[in-house]
C-alpha cells in the first residue's frame, strides 16, 4: 500500500503555529520539519524545535511545559489533517561543547 504524501501547506502552517506559541515557560525559537523513516520504517514527520535555553541554573526545561508542547503540537497536527506519525525533537538554542568534541576534531575519530 502506498503512503500518502505529507501536505506541505499543512506542515508550513504547523511550523508557523509552533513558532507563534509559548508553552508555559517554553518558547520555540525556530521550527524545522523533515520527512524520514521512523523506527517502524514508516514515513514520518520529524519536527526539530529549537527552544529558548532552560532558565538560569536549570539543566533542562520544566516537564509540565514540555508535555504541553508535545501534546499541543500533536493536537494541532491532527487539526490540520496530518495523518503521518509526528515526532518532536527538542534542541537548546545554545549548544555547549560535548566532552569528547575536542578529541574527535583532533583525531578525526
Amino acid at each position: 500500500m502506498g503512503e500518502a504524501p505529507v501536505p506541505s501547506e499543512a506542515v508550513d502552517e504547523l511550523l508557523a503555529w509552533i513558532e507563534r506559541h509559548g508553552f508555559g515557560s517554553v518558547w520555540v525559537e525556530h521550527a524545522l520539519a523533515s520527512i524520514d523513516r521512523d523506527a517502524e520504517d514508516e514515513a514520518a514527520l520529524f519536527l526539530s524545535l529549537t527552544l529558548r535555553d532552560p532558565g538560569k541554573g536549570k539543566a533542562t526545561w520544566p516537564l509540565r511545559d514540555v508535555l504541553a508542547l508535545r501534546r499541543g503540537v500533536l493536537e494541532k497536527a491532527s487539526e490540520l489533517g496530518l495523518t503521518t506519525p509526528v515526532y518532536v525533537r527538542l534542541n537548546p538554542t545554545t549548544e555547549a561543547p560535548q566532552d569528547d568534541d575536542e578529541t574527535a576534531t583532533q583525531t578525526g575519530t
Partner: protein
Amino acid sequence: MQRAIRPQWLLRQADELAGRFAGVGQPRNADLRRAASAAYYALYHELVNRVCEHLQPDATDAKRWTLSRLFAHRNVLAVCEWILGATGIPGAKGPPARVRAAFQRMRTSTRLVDVALAFQTLQQARHEADYDHLADFTRPATLSLIDQSRDAIRKLRLVASVSPPMYQRFMTHLAMCPAVSR
C-alpha cells in the same frame, strides 16, 4: 547473586550519564545516547513488569521475570498507539474495531495518554540513539526524555491506585495485544 533490571536503577543511570547534577557543559555524546536508551528501557521494563504481575500475581519474581522475556517491544508500542490513535494523534494507528470501545474509555485518562505518548517518544529516541549517526543528542533534551520516562512511570502508578478498572484494562490489552491484532 541475581539482580533484576530495576526501572529506578535505569533512571538513575540515565541521570548520571546525562549529567543531571554536573556543572556546565555537556557529557560525552555516547553517554547522552546511552542515557536516552536507558530512559526508554526504564519505562519498557516498568510496563512489562506490571503486566507480568497482572498476569501472575502469585508467581515468584523469577517466574515473572521469565515471563517478561516473551514480550515484544513492537506489541507494547502497538497498544500505546491504539490509545494515541483513539485520541486522534497523527499517524498513531487506531485500535481494532472489536476493542475500540475499551480504548475510547482509556483515552479519557490523560495520565494514560501521557504514558502512551512517552512510550512512543522514547522508543523512537532509543532507536535514534542506537542507530542514527545524524541524530543530535544534547544534555537538556536528553534530560527532558528522562523526565518524561520518570513522569510516565509515576503516572502509571497513579492510574493503578486511582483508577484500578482503567489500569486493569490497560494491563490486559498489553498482555493480549498479539492475540487481538491477529
